């Protein structure tokens, strides 16, 4: 291949990776294959910097049905019902285009939940912005981002008909160049009707459903690689635009499909689109797959196999169905006016074979792509600023009198009423919301099917995590757990979204290592395992990393929906206690 050096660089692959790829393939890779490895071995898909630290998370308890490794975690909530939940970041896209970035973030997390067979019943969001109160360009831009992100979260969730029942936000200068948008979704389903992202059974059809594929999200890698120049220059890297209406149709069609017994496995096409969904589905069951890429529904003309494999177009799913049911599956999706095509079949070769108009354009063994993905042990170093902080004491800060302190706190952004935000979210659709946003502490929905209530709360104090990366992360687990407990529910499990800076910076890696330690300890102490989660690294601009921000969402159960505790004083003359130190 010409200018291999640049191609590798554009795909964020090292020479070492390249040699490894050659060993796996037993030959030189072609461009499609380089694209596939690049996507699967990216930080986002392979967790190469973080895997080492995530391994120690407690993930088991009698009520855990599915821990990390699937599209979302699953816990038992009694009465034959299960809760399915996960949290995910959409930080970088939201900084570039706040409305669409946040909207597609919500879309992605919803698909992670309903791909498992659960109807999403509640969303939360955790947002970190910079200094919105500055009266300069930065302040103006931050306010623009707040408006866009909030409208985007509402715009998507409201349209799909899933209530956004709570969340949190903080404001720090470290987010001026890199805001954080974390979206959480929880769904419920029958315990014995959970679906997994698997493709198995030789000859079973692989079916593509949802929106057509465009060149969305095909940015950096291709465009900066020289071999494409003139042809692709006019095809600007495009931002992904969400289509919540299509998502709603996809949700309803999937719910209908799940009532049948046609499905072997199903997975949403999220990051790295068709590549990650097909490889993961085949990988989980040790199968191979043959895909006829020319059959993929396309939105634009002249698309290539490379683009089809890497596009991140939204609102798409991949289904492995039982042979012989394919027509019935297609019928369900056509009823909902969605595209649906048989694009491949399962094999027992353990190899992914890609065809383009009858010609084989790529052939990659499935297992090594994930099993042999690079796992890094990046250097860590205790940050120097911690020494400086250690010297600082509360006594060095000038004293403020109580009235002034009260007023200052009362008017601080962290404390002010967030109604402007949550009133843009439909928090009551589905008629289950018992504790709305604005009623403080955990948010709560009742489950009509079993009379119980699910409490959930998302927490993280970034400033605390900066001062003490381990203690801060543990405190986030504790705070979310306390919120859930204070609503009268027993905390059962967490999902997390670990937003950190650049992993190539040893100080940042140290923060990350400490943060995961803190989560481990706190989760063990509360007996609330980690059942799903997400890592977002490289949150930095011009060398400035965000504060360590491990957002924790705790989920708990209240056996009686009528016994949910409110979080505000009820009546005059009621007695007020303070418990704990």
């Amino acid at each position, binding site marked *: 291949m010409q200018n291999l050096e640049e191609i590798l660089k554009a795909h964020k692959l090292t020479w070492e990776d390249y040699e490894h790829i050659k060993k796996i393939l037993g030959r030189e890779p072609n461009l499609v294959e380089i694209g596939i490895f690049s996507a699967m071995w990216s930080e986002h898909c392979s967790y190469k910097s973080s895997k080492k630290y995530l391994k120690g998370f407690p993930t088991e308890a009698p009520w855990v049905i599915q821990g990390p490794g699937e599209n979302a975690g699953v816990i038992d909530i009694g009465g034959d019902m299960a809760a399915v939940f996960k949290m995910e970041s959409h930080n970088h896209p939201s900084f570039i285009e706040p409305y669409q970035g946040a909207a597609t973030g919500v879309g992605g997390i919803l698909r992670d939940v309903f791909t498992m067979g659960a109807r999403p019943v509640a969303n939360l969001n955790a947002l970190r912005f910079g200094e919105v109160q500055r009266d300069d360009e930065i302040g103006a831009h931050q306010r623009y981002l707040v408006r866009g992100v909030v409208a985007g979260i509402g715009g998507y969730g409201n349209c799909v008909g899933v209530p956004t029942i709570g969340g949190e936000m903080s404001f720090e200068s470290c987010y001026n160049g890199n805001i954080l948008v974390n979206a959480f979704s929880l769904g419920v389903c029958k315990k014995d009707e959970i679906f997994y992202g698997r493709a198995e059974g030789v000859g079973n059809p692989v079916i593509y459903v949802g929106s057509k594929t465009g060149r969305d999200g095909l940015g950096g890698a291709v465009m900066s690689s020289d071999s494409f120049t003139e042809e692709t220059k006019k095809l600007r890297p495009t931002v992904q635009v969400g289509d919540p*209406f299509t998502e709603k149709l996809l949700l309803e069609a999937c719910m209908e499909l799940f009532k049948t017994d046609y499905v072997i496995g199903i997975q949403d096409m999220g990051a790295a689109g068709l590549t990650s969904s097909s490889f993961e589905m085949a990988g989980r069951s040790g199968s191979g797959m043959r895909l006829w890429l020319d059959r993929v529904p396309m939105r634009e003309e002249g698309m290539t196999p490379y683009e089809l494999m890497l596009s991140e177009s939204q609102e798409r799913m991949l289904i492995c169905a039982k042979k012989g049911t394919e027509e019935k599956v297609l019928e369900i999706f056509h009823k909902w006016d969605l595209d649906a095509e048989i694009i491949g079949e399962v094999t027992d070769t353990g190899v992914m074979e890609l065809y383009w108009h009858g010609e084989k354009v790529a052939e990659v063994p499935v297992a090594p792509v994930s099993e042999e993905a690079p796992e890094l042990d990046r250097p860590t170093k205790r940050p120097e600023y911690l020494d400086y902080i250690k010297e600082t004491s509360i006594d060095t800060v000038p004293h403020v009198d109580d009235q002034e302190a009260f007023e200052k706190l009362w008017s601080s952004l962290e404390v002010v009423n967030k109604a402007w935000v949550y009133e843009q979210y439909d928090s009551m659709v589905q008629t289950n919301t018992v504790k709305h946003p604005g009623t403080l502490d955990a948010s709560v929905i009742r489950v009509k099917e079993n009379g119980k209530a699910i409490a959930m709360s998302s927490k993280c104090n970034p400033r605390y995590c900066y001062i003490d990366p381990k203690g801060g992360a543990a405190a986030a687990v504790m705070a979310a757990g306390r919120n859930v407990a204070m609503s009268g529910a027993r905390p059962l499990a967490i999902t997390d979204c670990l937003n950190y800076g650049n992993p190539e910076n040893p100080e940042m890696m140290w923060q990350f290592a400490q943060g995961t330690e803190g989560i481990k300890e706190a989760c063990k102490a509360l007996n609330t395992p980690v059942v799903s989660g997400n890592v977002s690294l490289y949150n930095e601009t011009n060398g400035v990393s965000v504060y360590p921000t491990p957002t924790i969402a705790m989920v708990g159960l209240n056996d009686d929906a009528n016994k949910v505790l409110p979080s505000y004083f009820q009546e005059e003359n009621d007695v007020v206690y303070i418990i704990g130190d």
Partner: protein
Amino acid sequence: MKVAIIRFPGTNCEFDTEYAFNIIGAKTTIVWHKDQALPKDIDLVVLPGGFSYGDYLRSGAIARFSPIMQAVQEFAKKGGYVLGICNGFQILLESHLLPGAMKRNENLHFISKFQYIKVLSNNNKFLSLLENGEILNIPIAHAEGNYYVQEEILKSMYDNDQVILQYCDKNGEYDNPNGSVDAIAGICNKDKNVFGLMPHPERACEKILGSEDGIKMIKGFMY
């Protein structure tokens, strides 16, 4: 009472509506928008809330052309009772079964919250169990609820008791969350068999959800 609830692509309150009508003991069927006919012996057709066709172009604009809407039009013409809630109201406006049109909320945002509304006229079946001037607490959730109608038509609507619900505050004083003409929250047609309102009574039918005021509204159709 037998209720048909129409499901358009993008509708998202059909099950909530069904649940609420079941609470008051009504029999419900969900009807697919591509059906040509309504089920037999229906007492009430409900167009529920949601985002039919994603609210693209204008809310309700595309749903109006669904095959089932022909049947709903005929049902209404023969005097059948039709209730449009939120997106359903928008669809009734676009279908010209009710006068006026919706614009985007004055503040351009989606607004979701509990909102007080006041009964202006109970001279119709829908609000027959309520007193004139009675104040209810019912959730609203919409981005295009800014009701507009020409002045002359509005006048005749008042004369004919067609303006039936108005936004207000806790004490019944003027409050207008979305910029609607005269803070109008709900109306009916001349014959008083087609009703539209932006608030969601089906979300206020149980104590656990914060209000039961919706019950008294939807129950009106039973008597």
